[in-house]
């Protein structure tokens, strides 16, 4: 649209809009003056209507907050993250879960979390202790990047000493390569 055209449009449309507004205001005033004797009740009714409207909004907002909190709490129910073999990278699918944990920790500066690092049985126990720590620290760093204070987080590596699934299958191994958030 050319600037001249826009100007013309505004010149035509703006007065119309202003007119419409003044009309509405005029009508309102008219109603108020006409129903003079019932002004008090009318005002009351209007107030009631207003307060109902306000409460609904608050409730809705409240419900939204509760909904969000429920969702966050549900996300926080997930306190376990799994890793690839010999890897300590936090996978993308856990970002939402970690954000929920971070939000909670940010909102509750007194809350503390212990992040446990675990491994499958492959490799030596000592090497797995080191690898488990790397996993726990990678989660800790992720939370810190989301604004969680370092003093709220501690880490402990159990290496291969506390398997979740004791059967020695590939599926069990992948369950054992994990970090666990413990509050």
């Amino acid at each position, binding site marked *: 649209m050319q600037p001249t055209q826009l100007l013309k449009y505004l010149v035509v449309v703006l007065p119309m809009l202003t007119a419409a507004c003044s009309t509405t205001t005029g009508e309102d005033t008219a109603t108020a003056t006409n129903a003079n004797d019932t002004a008090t009740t009318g005002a009351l009714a209007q107030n009631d209507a207003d307060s109902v409207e306000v409460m609904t909004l608050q409730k809705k907002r409240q419900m939204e907050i509760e909904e969000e909190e429920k969702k966050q709490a549900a996300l926080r129910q997930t306190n376990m993250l799994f890793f690839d073999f010999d890897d300590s990278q936090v996978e993308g699918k856990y970002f939402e879960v970690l954000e929920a944990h971070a939000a909670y920790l940010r909102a509750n500066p007194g809350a503390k979390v212990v992040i446990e690092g675990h491994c499958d049985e492959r490799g030596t*126990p000592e*090497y797995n*202790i080191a690898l488990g*720590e790397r996993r726990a620290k990678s989660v800790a760093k992720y939370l810190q990047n989301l604004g969680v204070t370092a003093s709220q987080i*501690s880490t402990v*590596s*159990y290496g291969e000493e*506390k398997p979740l699934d004791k059967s020695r299958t590939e599926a069990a191994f992948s369950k054992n390569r994990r970090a666990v958030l413990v509050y």
Partner: protein
Amino acid sequence: MKKIVTLLLSLVLITPVQAAIEILITEGLDSARPIAIVPFHYEGVAQMPVKISDIISADLGRSGKFNPKAVFEMPQQPKNVEDVDYTAWTEKGVDTIVTGQIYDVRPGQFSVTYQIIDIIRGQITGGGAQMLSGGELVASNDHIMFASKPISFDSSDFRRVSHAISDKVFEQLTGIKGAFQTKIAYVLVTEQPNRPYQLVVADYDGYNEQEIVRSNEPLMSPSWSPDATKLAYVTFENRQAQIFIHDLYSGSREMIASYPGINGAPSWSPDGSKMAMVLSKDGNPEVYVMDLLTRRLTRITNNRTIDTEPSWSPDGKSLVITSERGGRPQLYRIELSSGKAHRLTYTGEMNLGGSFLPDNKGVVVVNRTRGNYHIARQDLRTGSMQVLTKTYLDESPSISPNGNMIIYSTLHGQNQVLALVSVDGRFKARLPSGVGQVKSPAWSPYM
């Protein structure tokens, strides 16, 4: 104070338990030397708790260097040297026999004598060789390689005395000091919900098991003091890794490392004055050496990757460690005087958990090749590596003090069990346990 009391309550100290481990030889040695331990002749009334000759036979068979004959294969059971039919033994292909005599001295007290007899020499001389002594011909008895003095012992000491005889026979015939009176420490994890983690010390053959610590949280990495009176280990009983020194005779425990992060892989120096360990207090896992008297730490490694599993060279002048500094975990030797590191291993994808052989000529490692973890030995001069085991997920090798045998942890079926392999890889045995997962074995020094 309250904490200490709770600690003591949560740990049961030194409780004797039943022997849960027995040894199953899975790969023998055809070239092993044939020997016969003749059932010892007994004169007495008291019942003997075990047969000494059975224990000696089992010891020698388990060394991988001998092939002891079963009793039914023996052509005779001579009471003593005079009764030996040399020709009969020679025909059976046996070149050495051991005879013995046990007496019941008084209730609960026994006495034993034994002789190691060279059948070949006896066959040549007919047991009647003579030599000149002071101008006269006397019986030289040179077919008797060793004749013991009477050994007096308590009825509770049958196994110990048997192992002592095995040590003498082994040393007499191989020139290598026997290690049959040594012990192993290991971690046992049971299925029971209450305090499933146990640290156990047993004779090397699995008998005389004693529970040293029992905990609700993991126990790891036992390491013997050089005088075999103490164990250092890692415990998570306080919800973090901590290194403790445990006196096996007094039962007293002392925490020596509890820094933020990893406190792991303790390894006692050969002179007993220092402890190598892994701490991550400065960021990531690094190797440190602690002076046990002053508790001062010296940092040995400093890089951004994992450094772990320190183990001392026999002369105490260097450490072998596992390090990721070159990408994947490999073994490096670090000279303690200069701090210089020198890469030792190149074979396979990874090499971990190294320890020096007592002769300082090789290292025993956990090698990963094509995803399989096996125990291997690398010659330090030539750099050539020999894979010793064929089992699954092998880890935590520990070498017997005479350098003859390696005990390690492996997966058999659904269970973690201990297994033995000779340093040349030719003899293999499994030590099955019926009660849980057995891991982290540590072979004691000579007792």
